[in-house]
């Protein structure tokens, strides 16, 4: 990211985007727009939870958020720090046990969209959250699977949110924790999962969607100020780029205001 940065107005190293918002804010806003109103969304903690709650507070007030702690129809007014914070149960429509949320809700096909983060991802949207390096003598031991493998298996579609960098966007995963489009093409279908796999990866630089045939993730849109060169440099494989790369609509004043309020309330609650 040297030469390309001189004529780019996005300064990724400092998280500064064009205008008065950060690259992370752009990423969260772009992810929140993927969530349609009224859908059932199984939410991971962290960035996915931030995006899903931004959506609920803006254009998707009737989306039904499900957390793996068994909270159904969660309506947190601050962002939960853990997947089972009290704020998730407080205004939930129902609270069920962990087996019930995975078996009766996720596996049974009641979840429209899964919102996931990742430590590493490959060109087919397969995800690693287990180890970096060999399994038996890992360089980095990551937290592990959690709820992700079954979300990736059974949600009708999956939205993945993570910052784009070579360490995260890798040619080959050390470990496949959650299956995306496997080896591309129809190879996922052979596994017999009811869910359709990842439909979009939202990063701090842009938006990637799978090619309809090969299922390889392709850069479809760049956030304002980001360049194709930046996206290529941040990707550990030879990134496919759409013929006409769109530009993401910058965050609206409302989106920014709601997101910042949410984060300020969350910070205040953590003290």
């Amino acid at each position, binding site marked *: 990211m040297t030469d390309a940065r001189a004529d780019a107005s996005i300064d990724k190293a400092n998280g500064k985007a064009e205008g008065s918002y950060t690259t992370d804010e752009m990423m969260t806003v772009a992810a929140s727009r993927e969530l349609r109103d009224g859908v059932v969304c199984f939410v991971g903690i962290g960035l996915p939870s931030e995006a899903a709650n931004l959506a609920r507070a803006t254009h998707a007030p009737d989306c039904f958020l499900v957390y*793996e702690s068994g909270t159904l129809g969660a309506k947190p007014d601050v962002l939960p720090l853990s997947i089972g914070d009290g704020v998730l149960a407080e205004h939930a429509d129902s609270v069920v046990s962990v087996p019930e949320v995975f078996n009766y809700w996720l596996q049974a096909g009641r979840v429209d969209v899964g919102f996931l983060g990742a430590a590493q991802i490959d060109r087919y949207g397969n995800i690693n959250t287990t180890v970096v390096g060999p399994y038996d003598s*890992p360089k980095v031991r990551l937290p592990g699977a959690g709820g992700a493998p079954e979300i990736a298996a059974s949600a009708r579609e999956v939205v993945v949110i993570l910052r784009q960098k070579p360490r995260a966007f890798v040619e080959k995963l050390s470990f496949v924790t959650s299956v995306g489009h496997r080896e591309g093409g129809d190879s996922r279908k052979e596994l017999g999962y009811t869910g359709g796999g990842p439909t979009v990866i939202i990063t701090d630089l842009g938006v990637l969607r799978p090619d309809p045939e090969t299922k390889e993730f392709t850069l479809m849109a760049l956030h304002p100020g980001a360049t194709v060169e930046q996206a290529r440099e941040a990707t550990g494989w030879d990134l496919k780029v759409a013929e006409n790369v769109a530009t993401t609509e910058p965050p609206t004043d409302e989106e920014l205001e709601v997101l910042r309020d949410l984060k300020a309330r969350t910070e205040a609650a953590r003290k």
Partner: protein
Amino acid sequence: MSEITTLREAVAELVHDGDSVAIEGFTHLIPTAGAHEIIRQERKGLTLVRMTPDLIYDQLIGMGCADKLIFSWGGNPGVGSLHRFRDAVEKGWPRPLEIEEHSHAGMANRYVAGASNLPFAVLRGYVGTDLPKVTKTIAPVTCPFTGERLMAVPALNPDVAIIHAQQADRRGNVAIWGIIGIQKEAALSAKKVIVTVEEVVEAFEPRPFQIVLPSVAVDAISVEPGGAHPSYADGYYDRANAFYGDWDPISRDREKFQSWMERHVLGTEDFAEYMKSIRKEEVVR
């Protein structure tokens, strides 16, 4: 039928070296008091079972109580890594830790099978992931009715389950409300059950989403107010978010970790004293 006793007696009687021990509480009602008593009594060679190993398992592992960990997500929620867990897996300190890892759905179903006295559970998952390559307790199975290929996971039947609940009544029934996680399944799958509670009441009040674990499903009940700190107990206290952050630098360093554990856990008689001990340090800091 359950008996109300001290936690020290309950652990002395029911938890033995080499046991498999499931300490459950899904981010809510985490049985810290129970885990600390195991550390105080210096149990060794345990197989620790827990969906979400967090601070208490970091402590049990770092203190050398465990030979094996069966789990599905090990991290410090909202903060980052479990450094004692990572040190054991990456460097074998203080002793090598065998791991058996699953997904949440797999672990949840293993407890359900255990609670149902079935040999295994079936789910639609794991296929295409690398988990079956490294975890022997995942195997394919064919539905005898439809021919669908599914994955089987064996039942979990820990020697002891420890959970924390809000209340027990005088008859030894246990009430849990709020996020109920996997505690009912963990308790019903185990051979012996220890429950720590915030308080003992005459009779339970009806509450939304409350479950009651009847006395016949529990062996020992101990009153340990605040026993789920730094997690929370709905209706009693909030999550001590700052503690999770504070744990990171303590657990990063082997010596710092050991001296912290010696000062606050090994150096105290019980959980009430532990709470006083860490609060005193907070004031000093």
